[in-house]
């Protein structure tokens, strides 16, 4: 998966979870729990969507690492490298 594909997937799912959020205003570097008040249910749904699209199983302990757009891209890169 390319960075662009990961980003598109992340934003598409974010739109589903938080339809009221203007995606163009998301700061890719900032944790979404602080930025738009996502809760543990929202983060779990994000993890599930990413798992379903990429096949990467994300342990609970790693959720914080993928709670921002940039963090998610970096995290998926490191995970897919490990598994190769």
């Amino acid at each position: 998966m390319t960075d662009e594909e990961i980003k598109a997937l992340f934003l598409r799912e974010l739109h589903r979870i938080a339809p009221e959020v203007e995606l163009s205003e998301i700061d890719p570097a900032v944790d979404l729990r602080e930025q738009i008040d996502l809760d543990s249910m929202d983060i779990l749904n994000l993890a599930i969507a990413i798992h379903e699209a990429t096949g990467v199983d994300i342990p609970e302990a790693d959720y914080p690492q993928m709670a921002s757009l940039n963090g998610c891209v970096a995290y998926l890169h490191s995970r897919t490298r490990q598994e190769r």
Partner: protein
Amino acid sequence: MADFLMPSLGADMEVGTVLQWLVKPGDVVKRGDIVAVVDTEKATIEVEIFLAGVIQKIVVPEGEKVPVGTLLALLTTDGEAVTAVPEAKPKPAAPAPVVSPLAPPTPPLVARPTPIPAPPHRPRISPLAMRVAMDLKVDLATVQGTGPEGAITKADVERAAKAPPPPAPEPAVAAPIAGPAPTAPPKAAPIDHRAAMRKVIAAAMARSKREIPHYYLGTHIDMSNATGWLQVENLKRPVTDRLLYSVLLLKAVALAARQIPEMNGFWIDGAFKPSEAVHVGVAISLRQGGLIAPAIHDVDKKGLGEIMVSLRDLVKRVRAGVLRSSEIADATITVTSLGEQGVETVFGVIYPPQVALVGFGKIVERPWASGGMVGARPVVMASLSGDHRASDGHRGGLFVATLERLLQEPEKL
């Protein structure tokens, strides 16, 4: 001929706007089918019908705002001969019960084990976009959806509103289903949902504090068994099946409510009416402000995995602004969990006509003395707001103690 009326979706609802009909004359409906989408001040609700039969006539067209109790549609029920629709049916004269919004609401439906059916297929549109379309008087049939799976988004509607009017669409497409000729545009005034929701919360909470003599109990609960068990359990589960700890809390509350039935039910017409079923209302805050507490049905009978699925589904639909009528009207006890906001203690306000509200704060690590030793344990503050008309502090205390005991054996939940 049977009447399908604008339902009362919670103690705080006075009027509703029919956003969309999902049935038309001649359609066969059964109990639990979703037949219409109604906008209340608080949310967009998919309204289920509790009659079986054939739709004969749609009385209130899409876009019209009517009081609770207004005749929305006529249907012939099973076994009844299908008769011609009486054309001279007088206009519904708003037969809403002449009561103030603060009068006792109609008793919510309880003990209805019918599973909630999946909503019928229809073009995907977010409720927000639907409201905007109504406010801007945009015909949705002319809007091209650009959202996920071709869904129509708010931006699509706004774009369509700015664009020059498209060539007149086929009349068959533009005409509202079975409504009167579209000469009169929808009369619904634009609704400021945030302000409207504030108003209904204000009315319900003011009524609660005026009528319900609350008593409050609280205790600290050692959560080391629960969180430890959950960690191990979640390691075994794929990400799609993982549990949030609030699922343990909901199940424990439901089991405790079954054991101490004075906490589970309604105060109606000067008397406590216990409920057989345990439908747990879950207070879910909306990011734009406000909150809503729809119910998960039969939590006492569901496994943890099942409750998790229901909770995920519910939160998703609350965030999207679409709920079902039965979920809104029939919680028998409510749970509020403010832990995520970092608060340690919450003493909540009971949502009438319910008689109890259970609050949970944040799980924090605290020194905990046990067996003559002090150690660090994850601890949560559990509180009960009880209706003193329905129960006393002694029974309330038993309820909290039962809750604590249940949370010590998470594997049995």
